[in-house]
């Protein structure tokens, strides 16, 4: 199994190509998509598949999702580029009231095979409307699946799985990693939805996280190693379905769980992770559960304020030290 170093964006491009070569009914829609989309993750598709399969959309987010749903129930599989995740809010009605409910509400007569790709997270002073992470909203909606890869390899395998999936999948890609390079398995492969992975083994504490926070956690673990703090890092990869077994196994071992994410702590997905692990380990009431996320404010623009709202490596390290009491 050979690998090749490439960016997260290039890796997803490969997955797109395997999917589009395999099934002529897979199409891509989005704003500026023929130019590769806002972060270039779709660059080159237009030359390979032409305008009929790579459709430039007007600035009409509601339509992008509703049209994807309509095309999907009429026989296509649609990958919709939503650009910044905040723009999906302009299509929340279509995502929640239509896409997520169709299969159930219509009694299984149809499914809605669409993938909504959106870029989230901070990139450095992009301001309040271009820096948020909104998985907390999507994960509360039955019928949606939600993935948030932390590296190019998972990005490739998860995108393949997301496109093959019969249900709507919200595919969240962190702006900071779209351009990051990683070793990516060559050729075609799937990372099944709902499978977390132990990104680093450790004994003292389990940091349960996803997306770019995984990379931050891995850095933190290296730093803390020198302080003899052994950190296990769980990369969820997929939030819905959630791989509770892998979380529970780690928690059983370390006895301490820290759920960490860039999005807002209050009402966020971290609370769900903690609730799930406790429900999975009723025999372990003494389990310690903690969470780290953004403080309750829109993401500020100023370089002096952004790090005061959104947690970074120093916050994570400090929190781990505090928890393990060293």
């Amino acid at each position: 199994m050979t690998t090749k170093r490439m960016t997260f964006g290039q890796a997803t491009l490969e997955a797109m190509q395997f999917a589009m070569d395999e099934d002529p009914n897979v199409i891509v829609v989005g704003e500026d998509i023929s130019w590769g989309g806002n972060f270039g993750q779709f660059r080159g598709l237009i030359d390979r598949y032409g305008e009929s399969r790579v459709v430039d959309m007007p600035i009409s987010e509601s339509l992008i999702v509703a049209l994807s749903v309509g095309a999907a129930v009429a026989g296509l599989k649609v990958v919709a580029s939503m650009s910044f995740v905040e723009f999906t809010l302009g299509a929340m009605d279509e995502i929640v009231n239509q896409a997520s409910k169709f299969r159930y509400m219509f009694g299984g007569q149809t499914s809605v095979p669409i993938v909504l790709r959106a870029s989230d997270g901070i990139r450095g002073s992009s301001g309040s409307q271009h820096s948020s992470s909104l998985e907390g909203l999507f994960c509360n909606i039955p019928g949606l699946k939600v993935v948030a890869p932390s590296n190019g390899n998972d990005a490739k395998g998860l995108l393949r799985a997301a496109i093959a999936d019969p249900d709507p999948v919200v595919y969240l890609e962190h702006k900071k990693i779209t351009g990051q390079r990683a070793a990516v398995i060559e050729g075609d492969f799937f990372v099944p939805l709902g499978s977390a992975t132990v990104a680093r083994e450790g004994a003292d504490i389990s940091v349960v996280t996803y997306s770019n926070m995984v990379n931050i956690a891995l850095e933190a673990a290296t730093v803390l190693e020198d302080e003899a703090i052994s950190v296990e890092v769980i990369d969820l990869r997929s939030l819905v379905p959630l791989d509770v077994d892998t979380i529970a196994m780690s928690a059983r071992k370390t006895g301490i769980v820290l759920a960490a994410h860039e999005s807002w702590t209050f009402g966020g997905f971290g609370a769900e992770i903690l609730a799930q692990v406790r429900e999975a380990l009723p025999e372990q009431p003494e389990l310690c559960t903690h969470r780290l996320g953004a403080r309750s404010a829109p993401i500020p623009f100023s370089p002096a304020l952004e790090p005061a709202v959104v947690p970074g490596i120093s916050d994570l390290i400090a929190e781990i030290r505090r928890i393990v009491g060293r």
Partner: protein
Amino acid sequence: MTFIDRELARDLLRRMQTIRAFETRVEDLFKAGELPGFVHSSAGQEAIAVGVCHHLTRTDYITSTHRGHGHAIAKGISLDAIFAELYGKEAGACHGRGGSMHVADFSIGMLGANGIVGGGFGIATGAALAIKYQRRGEVAVCFFGDGAANKGTFHEALNFAGVHELPVVFVCENNRYAQFTSASRTTAVTDIAVRAGSYGIAGDSIDGNDLVTVIESAGQAIERAKNGGGATLINMLTYRHSGHFVGDAEQYRSRDEVEASKELQDPIVRFVQRMMDVGVLTEAEVDEIEAAVGVQIDAANDFAVAAPYPEPADALRHVWTVGSPQ
């Protein structure tokens, strides 16, 4: 008018009467507390559903509204399946998961009634995109109300349909009220067809209670769509005989207004009169058809009443969720 021969006239009348009889029965059942939830009757608007769907095959698509019984019946749903759905029975078109506002039959291209006003614009447009992409000779028809025309989704869909000359027909069932509010209070230009000019598509404004006019106007639009001529927006004036929902006190319109419309504008009465004037139908035939329809409605209702409810144990069937049957 000669193009309507006896067979066709009988068939069209049977369809309109089936819808009328169904809606009338549903209203009685609901008022008697026999039906759960709430229901919207399309009585008075039969000519539009029947006249438009007259041109459609099982593989053409329609999107419908909260007032969707007539559309489903005109498109060819089984009376057993729609009646059972309204009772929430497993034998219903959506296995009881949907109900009156979500009646759908994907096997005949009926992509669902929709409880979200304006929800159909983008879905029909997406279905039309799939038709065009797959080079199928079909059409998608989007039924919507005068109130729905004020949703932003109207604008986004028609603009896109205009850009791509999609095989879609937007049919406005303009019954002059949105719930309790008359269109003139909320709509700057109430002849919805005027807007066709904003999207470079064809537009038409007609008497939607005259079945023959509906058939002609819809026929031209559907032919245009199927021949690559692009989208059409048709404003069809009509009137709903009942309240917005069954039980509506209707303080917002006068009894006289309602009675006048029923007397002079009833699409069934007008069609019958017209067919009898030109000697295509006889009074006896009309009575015979009405009687036959009544028998069918009785049978379908009996079937639905006798049919079993879904198993509570199957509550999570047809949606992805932990441990749910897929």
